[in-house]
């Protein structure tokens, strides 16, 4: 074909171990509708047959060193091209050895530049090598963080949506057509960019030199991206450790720093560093430490050689004709980057949650051909919609929950649940701080559930009350969903699994937990069904991947953070499993493989909730406690029926079918008996533990243990056993004569029906008035909160009308909030005696004791015995300050406060105190008494020295001051911070180990790439 245009095109093919793609490339060059006027190949000492292939194609070959960069190779070729001929427009067409242009590529490229004389560089649309519908690029740019920007979605399908001629910052060198004179004028490619990003750099330089760069999608080339996808080694000079990612990131940073305006450099440097760190964390999470190191090293290698940047900037300055600002319109806006990143994340999540099913190969159009087009299309029918058992079940539960929760629309408290702080910040405060201003103060480790709730509050814009209300409102639905996701593994019959999961969500333990504010049991009810799903093969645990084990560890750790009962259960289950393994006399490697995984499941969750879990070893009652107030559970007989009892639980007459179901299932010949055995074990444990009384969470009187967590196991096992039995019962009953199975089935169904009706009825009526309600009442009157951090002894009659008891606690001027009961200290014996004597009227010295402990007020909350009020009136040392409908307040006479200074002459004065620490003056030698529980971390500093610390008669911390001057009171939280750091490391490790591992690009097979 005669060449009619005025362009002179020299194709330059650079090869480097490209034998895989080279035949196709050469063929593509040869089949161009507008052939190149000349073809020159440069081979960078390929180790394969690339040279032979080039020679066989009779293409002139220039040999270069193996470490020769792409730019240098092109420069070698350009040097060989004869000198410029006046009147002709000379172009160099850069062809990678893995880039095959389509036959019309050159023709279309030239067409695009025909009427655009300002264009110095034009590139084709790049499509995938393997998947030829996958669009790779149609012009490129660079983001502020150095990312290569194509503006395309991941694996975007080319439907011509980007077609046209686009003004771009740059185009890939693969298939790029560059005007030779401008190429030479700009000094070719930067030799510092031996590979990667040399294209963007050149485009940028061309732009600021006043030239145009366009991408024309009419021209197409297929690119294998062999170097970027690590199909071949990167041997170019400057490729540190031969790592493509490192070179790419380093070059990206170089391009940005060498070309951007000088005033942008500090901001760009921060962006580059920050994004490198974020990406390296991402790679660490994906267990790709090499890539993570690449990210950081890339920035590091550039920082240690600032001279390179300075030199490059000077060079660019000599060629620049227009301001760098012309580039700004080609740099992708930050919003676009965020939007695209979000879309990618959403796509990843969608792919995980709703995997794409293999679509039918039958065309929809074809199927329509067979149908009568006059038949009306099916429309949405409400009746059909409601007949779906899943929809009906969830809808019914939602209605029941809504009606039952009619008193719970607002900030909740009551039962074991205490009022939530207004923001997650307060919860984080409780979690992080080393000293808790609760009662007489404590340095107890905060349980990890506080951090979990604080983290979850973030999703609710930090509004913890909204989170708690929403959680209690949606808990039954979540429980039903979780239960159903497990039960549907046991039966495909939704008419069995949906009612079963519905009953699970209305089981006695669920109703009692919701009504009495048991956070831990509700979390257990949601998480429990997921555990057998994650670890389906418990017997042969070694078959599960370590990733799965660590994933379960995280789930168990979340559960353990709410209740250490989980550790008890794990200990029992895992101990039994190890014993069984030992008993089976397994081969040592199998036994050890199982042992390691089982022990990991036991120990790792326990470690993840340290130091709270470690403290529990010293205070074992914590193993049996739930978050919040320590309220009594039900009687042993009630627990036996699967009802945990306590405030807000179902009354005894709504006998649940749990026990009956477990007993029937025990005798079943199906594998329901396995579930029944598990359920019976949980039930036995629950019954035994229900007889234990514990003293914990600021409650000094022994309180019967709440065994809701154990009953979760029994309930779930019972429901699962029921599903398994029912799944095959119908067939068995039909095929057999009437015998005991029929009677048992009838009995079971009748009891279940009675339970369903009675429990729903109770929930909708009396159940709605259970302890947990939206209640904005306060205990401490507002005027007592005015004095910051003032201790007030609060006396109240607590309990039902039949069993009232007088109880007291020290308030810091506020009602308690979420998390505080868990770190509350026990009672102080001296205060207990003084309070007792205050009530029985013998407490002549009660006021002195209270004063010594910094208690400034005594508040008796109404309703209260008038006799006791009169008794307190009659005692000396208490001056009545108010009597309102809320109660009566007395001021404890005498000098008292948080920090008391006793001068040498015995004069007591109250020093100014902060919330925890304080900075104040003392005006002479004496003794400082801090009216907080003694703790070694309390320190008072004066002139840079620590004052001697001792315990006074009341076991309060006391410091000797030898001279006047400023003092600083601190609670040293170093140990707490150390624990938090260790915890953070442990959780990060757990998440990394549980996260899906990323793959290096070279590990992705060609098939997958296709």
């Amino acid at each position, binding site marked *: 074909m005669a060449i009619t245009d005025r362009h002179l095109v020299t194709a330059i093919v650079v090869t480097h171990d490209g034998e895989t793609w080279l035949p196709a490339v050469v063929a593509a060059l040869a089949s161009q509708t507008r052939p190149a006027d000349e073809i020159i190949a440069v081979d960078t000492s390929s180790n394969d047959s690339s040279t032979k292939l080039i020679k066989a194609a009779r293409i002139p070959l220039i040999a270069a060193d193996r470490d020769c960069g792409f730019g240098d190779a092109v420069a070698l070729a350009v040097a060989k091209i004869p000198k410029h001929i006046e009147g002709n427009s000379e172009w160099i067409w850069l062809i990678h050895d893995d880039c095959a242009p389509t036959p019309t590529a050159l023709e279309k490229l030239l067409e695009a530049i025909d009427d655009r004389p300002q264009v110095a560089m034009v590139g084709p649309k790049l499509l995938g090598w393997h998947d030829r519908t996958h669009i790779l690029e149609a012009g490129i740019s660079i983001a502020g963080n150095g990312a290569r920007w194509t503006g395309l979605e991941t694996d975007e399908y080319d439907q011509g949506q980007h077609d046209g001629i686009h003004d771009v910052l740059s185009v890939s060198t693969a298939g790029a057509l560059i005007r030779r004179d401008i190429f030479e004028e700009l000094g070719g490619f930067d030799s510092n960019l031996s590979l990667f990003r040399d294209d963007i750099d050149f485009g940028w330089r061309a732009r600021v030199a006043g030239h145009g760069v366009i991408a024309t999608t009419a021209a197409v080339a297929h690119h294998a991206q062999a170097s970027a996808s690590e199909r071949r080694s990167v041997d170019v000079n400057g490729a540190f450790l031969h790592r493509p990612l490192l070179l790419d990131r380093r070059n990206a940073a170089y391009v940005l720093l060498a070309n951007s305006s000088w005033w942008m450099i500090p901001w760009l440097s921060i962006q580059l560093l920050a994004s490198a760190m974020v990406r390296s964390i991402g790679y660490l999470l994906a267990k790709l430490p090499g890539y993570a190191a690449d990210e950081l090293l890339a920035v590091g290698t550039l920082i240690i050689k600032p001279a390179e940047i300075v030199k490059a900037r000077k060079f660019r300055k000599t060629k620049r004709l227009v301001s760098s600002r012309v580039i700004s319109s080609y740099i992708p806006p930050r919003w676009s980057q965020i939007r695209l990143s979000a879309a990618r994340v959403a796509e990843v999540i969608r792919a995980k949650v709703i995997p794409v099913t293999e679509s039918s190969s039958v065309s929809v159009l074809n199927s329509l051909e067979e149908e009568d087009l006059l038949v009306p299309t099916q429309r949405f029918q409400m009746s059909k919609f409601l007949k779906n058992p899943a929809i009906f079940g969830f809808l019914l539960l939602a209605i029941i929950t809504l009606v039952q929760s009619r008193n719970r629309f607002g900030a909740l408290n009551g039962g074991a649940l205490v009022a939530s702080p207004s923001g997650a910040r307060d919860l984080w405060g409780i979690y992080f701080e080393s000293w808790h201003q609760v009662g007489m103060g404590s340095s107890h480790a905060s349980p990890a559930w506080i951090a979990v709730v604080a983290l979850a509050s973030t999703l609710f814009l930090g509004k913890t009350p909204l989170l708690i209300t929403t959680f209690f409102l949606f808990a039954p639905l979540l429980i039903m969903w979780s239960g159903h996701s497990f039960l549907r593994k046991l039966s495909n019959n939704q008419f069995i699994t949906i009612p079963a999961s519905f009953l699970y969500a209305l089981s006695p333990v669920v109703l009692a937990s919701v009504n009495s504010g048991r956070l831990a049991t509700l979390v257990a009810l949601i998480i429990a069904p997921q555990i057998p799903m994650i670890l389906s093969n418990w017997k042969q645990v070694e078959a599960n991947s370590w990733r799965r084990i660590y994933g379960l560890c995280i789930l168990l750790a979340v559960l353990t953070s709410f209740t250490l009962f989980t550790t008890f259960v794990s200990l029992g289950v895992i101990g039994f499993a190890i014993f069984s393994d030992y008993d089976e006399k397994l081969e040592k490697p199998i036994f050890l493989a199982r042992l390691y995984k089982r022990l990991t499941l036991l120990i790792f969750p326990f470690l993840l909730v340290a130091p709270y879990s470690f403290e529990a070893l010293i205070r074992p009652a914590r193993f049996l406690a739930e978050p919040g107030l320590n309220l009594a559970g039900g009687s042993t007989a009630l627990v036996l029926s699967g009802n945990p009892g306590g405030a807000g639980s179902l009354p005894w007459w709504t006998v649940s079918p749990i026990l009956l179901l477990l007993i029937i299932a025990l005798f079943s010949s199906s594998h329901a008996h396995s579930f029944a055995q598990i359920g019976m074990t949980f039930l036995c444990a629950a019954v035994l533990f229900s007889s234990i009384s514990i003293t914990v969470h600021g409650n000094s009187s022994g309180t019967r243990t709440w065994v809701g967590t154990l009953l979760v196991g029994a309930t779930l096992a019972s429901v699962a056993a029921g599903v398994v039995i029912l799944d095959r019962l119908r067939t068995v009953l039909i095929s057999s004569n009437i015998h005991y199975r029929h009677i048992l089935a009838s009995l079971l169904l009748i009891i279940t029906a009675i339970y369903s009706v009675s429990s729903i009825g109770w929930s909708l009526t009396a159940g709605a008035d259970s302890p947990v309600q939206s209640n904005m009442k306060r205990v401490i009157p507002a005027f007592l909160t005015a004095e910051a951090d003032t201790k007030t002894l609060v006396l109240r009659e607590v309990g039902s009308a039949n069993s009232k*008891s007088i*109880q007291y606690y020290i308030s810091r001027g506020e009602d308690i909030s979420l998390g505080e009961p868990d770190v509350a200290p026990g009672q102080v014996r001296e205060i207990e005696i003084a309070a007792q004597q205050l009530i029985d009227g013998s407490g002549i010295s009660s006021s002195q004791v209270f004063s010594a402990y910094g208690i400034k007020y005594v508040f008796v909350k109404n309703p209260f015995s008038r006799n006791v009020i009169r008794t307190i009136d009659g005692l000396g040392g208490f001056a009545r300050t108010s009597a309102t409908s809320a109660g009566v307040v007395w001021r404890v006479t005498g000098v008292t406060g948080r920090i008391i200074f006793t001068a040498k002459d015995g004069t007591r004065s109250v020093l100014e105190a902060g919330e925890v620490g304080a900075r104040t003056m003392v005006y002479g030698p004496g003794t400082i008494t801090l009216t907080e529980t003694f703790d070694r971390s309390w320190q008072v500093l004066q002139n840079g020295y620590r004052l001697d610390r001792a315990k006074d008669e009341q076991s309060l911390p006391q410091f000797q001051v030898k001279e006047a001057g400023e003092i600083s009171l601190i609670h040293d939280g170093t140990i707490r911070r150390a624990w938090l750091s260790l915890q953070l490391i442990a959780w990060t490790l757990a998440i990394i180990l549980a996260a899906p591992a990323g793959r290096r690009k070279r590990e992705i097979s060609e098939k997958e790439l296709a």
Partner: protein
Amino acid sequence: MKFKKPLLYVAALVASFLIASALTTVSKPNNYSESYPAVVCPPTLKGLTSQISISSRKVQYQRLENRSSKTLPFNALRFPVSKDSLVITAQGTTPLIWQSRAGSWAGGTLCSGPSSAAWFVGGTANVTTRGRLILVNSGLSDAIVDIQSYTENAKQPIKSVNLKSKSFMQLSIDTLAPGDKALAVQVVPRSGRVNAFMIDEQGAGLKALGGDFVNSYPSAAKEVVIPAIPNPLPKKGEKASSSHTLRILTPGDVNTTFTLEVLSADGSFVPVGLNSQSIDAGVVSEFSFKPKISASAFAVRIKSPEPIVASISSSVTLSGRKDFVWSTATPPLTPMSIAVTGLSPLIVFAGDSISVKVQTKLINGKTVSAVVKGSDIATWRVPENARSITIISTSKGVFAGALIASSNGYGFIPIQNGSALTRVEVPNSNIRVLNP
């Protein structure tokens, strides 16, 4: 065996249940601190003499105005008090104080613990009165007391008084409703450890018309029993000298009726005019009656559809001198103990079926027991050398009062605990109190 394993599980569950039931540390019952609060005796006002009967010489006391918390033993079984009010740690045996003005009147009352409210139905605020309302604050803090008076004319405005710690105050009762004749007073301490006592003393010019303690009753009730009303029998040839006046008040807002039934050794009956007698709310009413009874004491039972308070004033003559006795309502009899050293009261028991076991501790330390039985009314005279009497047991619905006669006059004492065993629950520390 096919069902061996299932049966094992069932057996394990049953065993767990049995073990748990056996082990259940029954939710530790609340601890209680039991004590008898210290009782307070009224002070001895000017011109009066007082003697306190105590059950043991070791009983400790403290003078009211003594700021120290130290107590002293009485070292005597009958203790004369010159002025001050005494605070006595009586430990269950209620001391009794007998006061008198030589040649004028005598009367007694129980030394008692602080009360939440006290009704005094008695006294007069007219020109003849020399009565006093005595308020004692035995606590270490100041006290506030509300005094609500009712008269035959109207309910009076509440009068509030402040009492300093460890002090007493005497109010002339004529200041409560000047000029009114029939008085009923309710004393309600708002704060503080307060006791109230009332002395009704009357005279016309230099002539003493007698006097007595008006004992208190804690609250109004629909049925009240006044168990011991003196009815001195005239000597042969003398006219019956005793007349009785019922003073009654319904402190509520609704008018009501009442029926008074006399319980006597001659049988029980309703005197003429006291059957379904109507009374106005908030106004004190008086009704005189002279029942013909052959016994020296009788009791009355008053029933009303609305809560009422009532007492009976009985005029008596002693050695030619006129005196009067305020018999007041008492609560149902319960096991209790009262010191009676130096006195030999006549105990009158009233009730449908009376069966009371009484133990008397004599001054020499010996104890004597007696069982008093009867219906409607029964009387029992305490031996002269007794130091205390103890009600060991009693049948239901029995009320008791004591009548004491001395050279200076007659007196009535309710038989009730001056200092009831106080059972105060030992408080527990529980952070739950800080959660609404």
